[in-house]
């Protein structure tokens, strides 16, 4: 009975996807002729987090984009639990199977650093980095803080500053630790679980400062309930809503750190399969769907493929380790 509902839902997704394919008339990527052997038809996209969250949204967006690019059927499957550990561990067991993909983000690097898991990023075949999601430093609308420099100065004072974090290797823990290391200060922390709890904590006066992805907090920024004092990105945002927010670097704080999103294949897949997915990813990035996803989520479109992505992961992992070991 229950599986019937799942089946109905899955087939509905498949039908919707097929309809999308036929309407755009997309043809499989040219790779098929060149490499010959690898041509997947029935693909699983594992999302290691619950349906409805940021990873789920990106996983489904990538799956739909790759379907258009390849003509294959890609079914999204949520395997949540253990901050992503359950999904990645399941994925580890699919070694050598080019018909499996996983919607990855910073947990791929954070989990091996903090939790007793059997994988790290080298256990898999990284295919593509979709883009970067930087964070904003956010305060309540009526806060006395006008800039990130104000926040840092207050943290040097006697009363300190209370910031919100969402776990030992969450993005906000990482960026606040980087600010602490750069400025030689220390924040007081109150732990939360996820962005919406942090927003409630800021509005209710439990914490003074939070660090959130723009897409999580835009509604409160537009209403004036919350205010962004700086962006922890290398350059200012080009989005109209965020163009006025100065970067931390402009304010003398040398911190920029992004959460990346992308997708990986299992370890030990054939070179043909790897190249097939890289080609498909490049086709997806050229599509309107990709642009829409990046813009809807106020992300920055810094796509990387294959070896470049691996290099990025190595650097990012080292950065994270410096924070965690502190």
């Amino acid at each position, binding site marked *: 009975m229950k599986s019937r509902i799942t089946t109905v839902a899955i087939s509905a997704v498949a039908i919707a996807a097929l309809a999308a394919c036929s309407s755009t008339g997309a043809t499989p990527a040219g790779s098929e002729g060149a490499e010959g052997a690898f041509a997947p038809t029935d693909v699983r996209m594992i999302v290691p987090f619950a349906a409805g969250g940021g990873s789920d949204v990106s996983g489904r967006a990538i799956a739909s984009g790759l379907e258009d690019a390849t003509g294959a059927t890609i079914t999204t499957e949520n395997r949540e639990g*253990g901050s992503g550990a359950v999904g990645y561990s399941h994925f580890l067991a699919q070694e050598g199977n080019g018909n499996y993909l996983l919607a990855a983000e910073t947990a791929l690097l954070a989990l091996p650093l903090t939790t007793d898991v059997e994988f790290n990023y080298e256990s898999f075949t990284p295919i593509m980095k979709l883009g970067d999601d930087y964070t904003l430093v956010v305060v309540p609308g009526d806060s006395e803080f006008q800039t990130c420099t104000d926040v840092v100065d207050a943290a040097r004072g006697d009363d300190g500053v209370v910031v919100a974090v969402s776990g030992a290797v969450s993005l906000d823990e990482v960026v606040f630790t980087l600010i602490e290391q750069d400025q030689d200060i220390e924040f007081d922390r109150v*732990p939360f679980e996820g962005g919406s709890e942090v927003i409630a904590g800021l509005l209710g006066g439990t914490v003074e400062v939070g660090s959130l992805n723009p897409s999580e907090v835009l509604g409160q920024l537009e*209403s004036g*309930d919350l205010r962004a004092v700086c962006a922890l990105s290398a350059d200012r945002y080009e989005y109209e809503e965020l163009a006025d927010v100065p970067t931390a670097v402009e304010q003398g704080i040398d911190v920029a750190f992004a959460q990346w999103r992308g997708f990986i294949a299992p370890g030990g897949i054939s070179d043909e399969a790897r190249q097939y997915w890289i080609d498909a990813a490049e086709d997806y990035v050229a599509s309107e769907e990709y642009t829409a996803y990046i813009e809807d989520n106020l992300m920055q479109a810094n796509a990387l493929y294959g070896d470049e992505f691996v290099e990025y992961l190595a650097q990012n992992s080292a950065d994270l380790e410096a924070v965690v070991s502190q």
Partner: protein
Amino acid sequence: MLENLLLGFQTALTVENVIWCFIGVFLGTVIGLLPGLGSTTGVAVLLPLTFALEPVTALIMLAGIYYGAQYGGTITSVLISTPGEAASVVTTIDGYQMAKRGRAGAALAISAIGSFIAAIISLALLIAVAPPLADVALKFTPVEMFAVMIFGLVIVVTFQGGALIRGALMAVAGLLVATVGISPGTSTERFTFGNVNLLSGIPFVEVMIGIFALGEVFYQIRMGAAEPIKARFKDMVIKRKDITDSMPAILRGSGVGFAFGILPGAGSTLASFMSYGIERRVSKNKANFGKGAIEGVAAPESANNAAANANFVPTLALGIPGGATTAVLLGAFTIFGLQPGPLLFETQPALVWGLLVSFFIGNVLLLILNLPLAPVFAQMLRIPYGYLYPIILLTSLIGAYSVSNNMFSVWLVLIFGILGYLMKELDLPMAPFVLGLVLGPLFEKALVQTSAIGRGDLGVVLQSPIAVGVLLAAVAMIVLPKLIKPGRALLGRMRDRSEETTGV
């Protein structure tokens, strides 16, 4: 206000929207009925189906699944003591007893009526005072939530009256099971034994299916199949007296449910058992609680529906989800290109008011759907147990597997099924165990946060007037009954004496 409502009716009362509203509440009822498949999973799984619809239509349908599931969750709680939804756990206590007495039809009908009244009351409150209420909800910071959790634990412990020590024991056992997994705040692993499946803790849904569904089946097998409950169709229909008796419980349940529903993160599960605990104290019929009191079904069922609606207060007014399901719904807003947040009421009036009015339509549809069906569903109990139990076992195990597509869940369900059987053998109350498991993570999070706010000093709780008030109420829950009894006895004796004197 009036023009907003008018706009809402204009949006919600189109043929298309009413049809999708019906599809939503119907699917919600089915989803609530199936063990393991709660409203959160239901909304998430069916979300992709709605991509082709207009945003407002899609949200009307998804919200319909949400509150429809609150109705459906009751049916299996009452009939086979297997809650389909977490918020219906409490209903099993008196609901199943009623079913055993051949009054399943009345139990189902009163839960439909109670749910309907609660939904209408909470909807009126939601429409009239959502923004100011949202500000009140924000006053419940972790410090106040810490006090609320202590209040909750007190209710859990004193849940089943006489067996105070057994209740406390089982609640502590539930809290202990809740400590498995990564701890909040420090991210330390506890009792995971290197198993990745245990990192996020022992999931509540699997425990619930195991203890209630499998535990009951195992127990009945051991007892030797009882005779199917033979009740005449006439007895299955609810009587007028049942409704009038339940009215105070329904109204109190609605109030309690709404109050807990607006607190971010508390949700309908907490609301349902709080209202049951309170009703046990104040009801005229309290002596029959646990033995099939209709008030014991009416109160929690009204509360979980009121809470489901009240959950939309922080969701719509602040852009902060009130619970797990509204979090998925907020995700849906984003997918449809809507920016959830405080400005939603101004930027999308047709959508917000259309959605709110659709709740009203949906609840009317649910009442029409559920009232006549109550006696029909109750007929299910006529199925001989030899056929019924394999079906329960099968749906339970499939339900467990589908929670996370993982065999580990199935093993968990079997283990907790055996534990549930043992609890029944030893006559240990199950509800406090489950509720300890629900409260555990919430309680611990509030504790860690409060401790961080006070820089290690829990004394900050005493600086908050709201928290102190809640704590005093918790103390009163323990102390007052002890004082009232001797007090009444004393009064009684004095009255007797005065009667004696006047009589002479």
